[in-house]
């Protein structure tokens, strides 16, 4: 009995020593309901954090949320574990993260895909300039189309998705050819059948390349491209694996780079909360997919690189809304 008690005490001590002994910085993230292997931003975030663990020596961890109600408790768990920086992945967590950060002013927080008008000092919001990657794929589409028509399928019609559309439109315009753009919103992020019928409709109207920013609706687009032997352009991550012969390129959001950069800033003592950072081409926050070189000729890729350099240099300012698009001039 006594031996058991001693053993128990030893285990408790050991656990304590392990959990508090490390002097390295610890960064943890909370996934939204998609889970850590969602093949999308949660997974990308975790990859960034793992890279930070390997290259920067931070201690990385994650907790998965099974439902929206888990966000609060998960934030509490990481707070109690003495995590240095807590990431909420995805705009769904915005309210929970804001509440946690106002309640625990000494704890550092950050969130992916959300910007507040007034951000508490211990919190960073990270957003992505999706319009810049959309601009590049629009440029590629306009240069590659054989029919002079390209398409855009949006999920729901609201500002985030407009960023994709107007970035794409501007990229098409930048290519300097007379290319018509068909655009339609599915008003859904899940209805793949609707995505397929919109895509079929656009292909029948003569489009041969269609870009989407519509989540699961895009599965229908990629299927239609496969069946009709046309091109689709993926979004958020490299979607080429879904249809290797039909996905021309993808407008990628590099959540991993954002997570890694902020980890680096934290280690170097450059952490600065209380504002929103927006990651574009310059910061490596968005880009076109690496598989683009499979189908896009090298000369065109070189042109795209040149356009990219001009965006990074600030010579070309990519529009993200109807208003900014109206005043956009091809330079």
């Amino acid at each position, binding site marked *: 009995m006594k031996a058991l008690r001693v053993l128990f005490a030893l285990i408790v001590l050991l656990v304590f020593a392990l959990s508090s002994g490390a002097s390295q910085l610890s960064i943890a993230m909370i996934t939204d309901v*998609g*889970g*850590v*292997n*969602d*093949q999308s931003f949660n997974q990308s975030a975790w990859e960034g954090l793992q890279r930070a663990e390997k290259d920067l020596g931070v201690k990385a961890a994650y907790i998965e949320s099974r439902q929206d109600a888990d966000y609060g408790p998960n934030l509490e768990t990481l707070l109690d574990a003495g995590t240095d920086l807590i990431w909420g992945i995805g705009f769904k967590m915005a309210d929970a993260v804001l509440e946690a950060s106002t309640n625990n002013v000494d704890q550092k927080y950050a969130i992916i895909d959300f910007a507040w008008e007034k951000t508490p000092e211990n919190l960073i919001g990270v957003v992505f300039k999706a319009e810049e990657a959309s601009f590049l794929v629009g440029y590629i589409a306009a240069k590659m189309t054989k029919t002079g028509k390209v398409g855009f399928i949006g999920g*729901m*019609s609201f500002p985030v998705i407009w960023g994709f559309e107007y970035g794409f439109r501007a990229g098409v315009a930048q290519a300097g050819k007379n290319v018509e753009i*068909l*655009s*339609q*919103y*599915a*008003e*859904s*992020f*899940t*209805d*793949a*059948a*609707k995505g*397929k*019928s*919109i895509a*079929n*409709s656009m*292909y*029948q*109207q003569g489009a041969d390349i269609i870009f989407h920013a519509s*989540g*699961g609706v895009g*599965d*229908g687009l990629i*299927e239609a491209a*496969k*069946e*009709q032997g046309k091109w689709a352009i993926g979004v958020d991550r490299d979607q080429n*694996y*879904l*249809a290797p012969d039909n996905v021309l390129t993808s407008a990628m959001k590099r959540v991993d780079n954002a997570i890694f950069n902020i980890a680096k800033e934290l280690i170097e003592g450059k952490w600065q909360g209380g504002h929103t950072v927006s990651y574009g081409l310059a910061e490596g926050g968005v880009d076109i997919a690496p598989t683009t070189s499979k189908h896009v000729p090298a000369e065109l890729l070189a042109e795209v690189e040149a356009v990219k350099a001009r965006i990074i240099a600030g010579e070309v300012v990519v529009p993200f809304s109807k208003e900014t698009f109206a005043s956009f001039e091809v330079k």
Partner: protein
Amino acid sequence: MLLESIAFIIATTLMYSAPLIFTALGGVVSENAGVVNIGLEGMMTLGAFVGAAVGYFANDAWIGFLAAGAAGGALAFFHALACVTFLADHIVSGIAINFIGPGLSLFLSRYFFDGATQTLSLSLDAKIPRPLNGVFEQNGFFDMVFNQYATVYLALFLVAFLWFILYRTRLGLRIRAVGEHPKAADTLGINVLRIKYLAVITSGVLAGFGGAALSVAIVSRFSSTLVSGQGFIALAAMIFGKWKPVGTLAACLLFSSAQGLTVYLGRGDLQRMLPMPSQLLATIPFLLTLAVLIGFVGKSRPPAADGIPYEKE
């Protein structure tokens, strides 16, 4: 131009309706035998996953399709066990099924696909075949209308088949008798329990087919958002169709054609002539269905003993 527009709407209608028809027919079978099945959504989701996963590993969508039916049927067995043997409330059991179906799908998906909540895509050759592919000129009128996946034809055939079973065979009479008045059926020597089990499991098989019709014909993989609510739309179509196969078919076609119309009206060139916000357009299928329901469909009456647990005395 006009001909093409019509062809496009018909094509979308047929594509859209196939998963709904399978699933809604499942509802018809179950409810005609007196067991309410709001678990269609869960069975459909599991079917969609199993169809895509088995189809992927076997590299043959038909095997996946059959496996999807088996999985839906297996899930339905538990619904039958709860509702028929243990006399549980049908709605409560159905809700449980709707949690189990998607939950199990995600769990299995994570297990077999390296932690991912979606399966990998089937190649075009491994998918359900399109029997009339290449027969007509691509994107011509006949190609658009008739170049459909085999599941579409199968769904339409199934409507006729089920109508025949329900109204022209002894088995059908028994199913309906059990749904209308199980006690009378029982006293006449019909094995009520067996009929109910048969009907509920069949409904699961059909819902599983419905899910697979989505995951291996309309698209080529399962993802966690693929089904999202189509099982409930099928359920509504069944009620709209007055619990009868042909009426249910009509309801599914109506809803799907409204979707086709929505997509058609959302086209850029039409939007210039007839501008309409896309949010408003997206409500058309639901508004139209509601309008038809109020205006043209008379009083609808479920089988008299639908949803009432039957206890043998």
